[in-house]
Structures are given as C-alpha cells and as structure tokens.
C-alpha cells in the first residue's frame, strides 16, 4: 500500500511574541502550534486518502520540543507520526529543512505522495515543497486548491496570479496546497484521544545523513513597532464617539 505523507512545521504563535521597546523580541511566552496552513496540508492528505484508501502519515522537523506537536497532528487523522527533533532546527533554513524532510521521506516505505502547505506562518518563505520535490527529483505542483486522484494519476487545479490552471501528474510527486481548498475541521474528542495511541517514529539528523549547516546567516532580527497616536474613543454613547471621531478627522484634513 502506498503512503501519503503530510509535512508540517511547529511554529511559535506569532500572537504571543512580545516586542521590547528596543525592538528586541521576547519569545519566552510564545506557545507552539502547528502552522495554520499546514493543518490544511494534513486535511488534504486525509481527503486524498479517503479517495484512494492509501496509508497516511505526518512528518515534521523541529527542535526536540516538536514532539509535543504529534498528538495534535495525529488527531487530525493520519495514522503514523514521523518526527525529527534536533536543536539544529533553531538555525535551520529552507536548505536544511528540505534536506531533512526529503531524507526522511526516503526512509518512509512506499511514500508516493507528499503534501505540504504553501508556506509556514513564521517564515512564509514558500520554498519547502519545490525544494523537497527537487531533492527527490519528483514532479511538484504548487498552489493547488483541488485534486482528483485515480490510482497513480492526479488531476490538480492550481490558483495562480490571474488564472486557474489544471494539470495532470503521476505519483510519486509533491503537492503544495493553498488553504482555500482544504479548510481543516476541529478534531473531535474521540480523534484526540485515539491520537495518543498512534505509532510514532523518531528519526535523527545524523542517521539521515543530513548536514545541519544553513546557507542563511542571520545578522539581526528586529521587532516592528507601530508609531501611531492611539486616540481611542471608548466611553459615551455611539453618537458621542462618532462626533469626536469626525471632529478629529476634520482637524487632520481628512474630510476636505
């Protein structure tokens, strides 16, 4: 039986980042989460498997903490969770991540389809699917909003700038889906409970033969601070607040 592998990234929740007055970034309060769009990749995997009856798995590469993500990932349906947890993930760029994922995919027996999201919510670099495709030398189709799978043949609809494109491709291949086509449902209680019993496989960077040295050298990371006036009308009834706002806008010359 063939296996469909959904790749996802465990990211810091951007809403928990604290930007200090000196524009340094405090991540100590940030919780981890599966990148929103990657939930759509998992959902797409489940939808394709429902058409084909293939086996399903998830694959992630992160710091050793990434193990915490497996329960959430597997509660979304896939049967097996593969993970690579290594401190090197802290500095990994898309070059390193794609090498780790591609090497891991080679070890997962019978993988015939890899499904990724377009990009992760932290970097949003949108490199992983095409890079993994290149490393495996499998054909790759990105920006997919719809797929029909019959045996090894996939008909996919891509949403690009100004056009919809329909293509066909045979497995094995890599697909990157857009969230629009694959809204992820919230896992039910039963799914969450059974996720804890699903098999997990840890893989190591060394055993996969990957070089953890990134090509990107980070020089600096600075938080963005909005410099706005923050004149907010909170009290009074709606018409008072509207009057205050309109007079403020008038003063700004916005209504002439």
């Amino acid at each position, binding site marked *: 039986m063939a296996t469909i592998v959904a790749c996802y990234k465990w990211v810091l929740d*951007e*809403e928990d*980042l604290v930007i200090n007055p000196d524009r340094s*970034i405090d991540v100590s309060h940030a919780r981890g989460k599966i990148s929103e769009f990657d939930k759509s990749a998992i959902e797409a995997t489940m939808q394709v498997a429902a058409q084909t009856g293939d086996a399903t798995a998830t694959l992630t590469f992160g710091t050793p903490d990434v193990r915490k993500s497996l329960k959430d990932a597997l509660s979304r349906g896939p049967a097996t969770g593969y993970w690579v947890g290594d401190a090197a993930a802290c500095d990994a760029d*898309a*070059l390193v991540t794609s090498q780790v994922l591609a090497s891991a995919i080679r070890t997962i027996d019978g993988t015939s389809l890899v499904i990724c999201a377009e990009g992760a*919510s*932290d*970097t*949003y*670099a*949108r*490199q*992983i699917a*095409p890079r993994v*495709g*290149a490393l495996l*030398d499998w054909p*790759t189709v*990105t*920006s997919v909003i719809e797929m029909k799978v019959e045996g090894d043949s996939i*008909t996919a609809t891509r*949403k*690009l*700038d*100004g*056009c919809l*494109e*329909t*293509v*066909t491709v045979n497995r094995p*291949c890599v697909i990157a889906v857009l*969230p*629009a086509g694959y*809204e992820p449902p919230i896992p039910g209680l039963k799914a969450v409970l059974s996720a804890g019993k699903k098999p997990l496989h840890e893989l190591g960077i060394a055993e996969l033969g990957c070089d953890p040295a*990134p*090509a*990107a*050298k*980070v*020089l*600096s*990371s600075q938080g*963005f601070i*909005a410099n*706005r*006036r*923050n*004149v*907010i*009308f*909170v009290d009074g009834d*709606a018409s008072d*607040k*509207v009057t205050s*706002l*309109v007079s403020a*806008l008038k003063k700004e010359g*916005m*209504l002439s």
Partner: protein
Amino acid sequence: MNEVLIYSDKPSLAAELVGFAREEEHDVTIVTFSPEEASELVGCGASKVVLLDGDSDIPENNARALAGLIDEWGVSLFAVGATPRGRDLAARVAGYLGCGMASDVSAVHLLDGKLSTERLMYGGAMVRSEEFSTPVVVTIPSGRFEAVRGVDSPLETIVIQPDMRVHLVEREPLSQEGADLSCAPRIVSVGMGVSKREDMALIEGLAAALDARIGCTRGIAEERGWVPAEQYVGISGVSVAPDLYLSVGVSGQVQHMVGVRDAKVIVAIDKNEKAPIFREADFGIVGDLYAVVPLLTDALVTAR
C-alpha cells in the same frame, strides 16, 4: 561573466529586477521561456536576453534544466520575480543547486560575493537581516526597483530539455474584477466582524460617504468571497498607502496590518477594546459597528 541572472513570468517585473542589478552595477542577463516575452524583454537594459526554448507550456517545468545552466554559467545570483510561479521555480532551482535562497525580500544587496537581504517574518512582526554566500537565489516582489529601458540587448536562443512530468490540461483566466487599491487615497476596510453579506450595504454606504474604495481582510475575500481577491490587504494580499484607512470589524492581526504600514491615518471601529488594531490605529471607536457605522455615515455626509 554571468553575475546576475533574472527571470520573471511577468515581463514588467523582470524589467524592475534589471533595475536592481543596474543600480548596483552588476552584469545582468534575463532568461525567458517564451519567444513573445523575449522580444519584449530585449529593451529592458540587460546585457543579453536568453530564450530557453524547451517547448513546455508550464514555466516551472524548466527548473531542472535551468539549474544546470546556472551551474554551468557560474551565475552568482539568480533573482526571480516573486509571483506564485516565480517562487515555485526559484525554490526548485535552489533545491537542484543545493544553495541558499531568500524569499520575498524587502531589501537586497549583492557585494563582494555576498548577498545581504531583509525580509519580514511572523507576518510582519519581525524584520530579519540575513547574509548568503553565492551562488544564491532570491525572489523580489514588484514595486521595489525602478525598471530601466536600454538599447536593445542581443537575443540568444538555447534549446533545453524541460521536465515533462507535469502536463497542462487547461488554463482559465480569472476575471480581474477587483479594484486596484494601490493608489486609492481613501480605503474603508471590512473584516470578519461584519456578519452577513447584506450588511455589506452598510460598508458601501460608509465608503460612498468618504469617497473611498473598499478593501478587506483575507477571510472576507478568500472564505466568504464578498469582495474580490485583488482587494484584500496584507502580507499575502496587496499593500496600500492611502491618506485614510478606516477599518470596520478588523481585529488587526499583523498579517493584515503589514499591508497598511504606509497609510497616513489609520482609523479602527471594533467592539473589542483589546483588539490589536487599536494599538496600530491613530483614531478608533470601541463599539458595535451596527450602531456606529450608520451614525458615522450620516455625520460624514453632513460634514463634507
């Protein structure tokens, strides 16, 4: 010398990337897969234009062959226009070359064999500066550099072998029904706080009173389809720079707000006092939009 190699599926963006290379005085070559585009690109100021003739209808299918040429030619920087196709092709080339890549950069310099870049992270909450050694790939969005015009550059044709494993069945244009917000002086932006489609009439009334265009958040365009996709603002939509940006029922997540950083005045109406939009607004009203918007519309009609 093949210092900088440029590709974009949008010829106007390829021309902007030549502008970048010329600004830094690099030798620059443009590649294209289309004879029609090649004749358009010869006037863009590159040292030469190379038509890679591979007879595939899908530009991305040429990535593997192109990576081979980039290696053979000793290209330092492969700069690609940041469009869906461009990002895909660029990342595949980086994958085949096993080299670094910077996506959607807001600043880029190539100096002494090092590429330095700036890009946004976490939807715009963070700016990251990075450095790469060459060869390296970069994607650059439109609007960063001025296109240059030049004397016609020589055109060369090279036959390549595309990867034909992805077949084109059909291509259907999406009607560009949306308004162009990039130059709009006033924008009223609608968020998921507007609960029913018929309530869009309220927003349209407010926009008319202000003589404003309508923008929106991603969910309004992509999930609900109430506003054309060209009009959603943010990191994956458009960036705007109006005099006045007035948002209604928009929570102000960073992915949206990054698109309005250049607005002169930001006004927010939201019922949640703690909504992040109020931290990034110049003026705001905390209140139910269904009470505030009709009153505001009337007051604006009277005031103007």
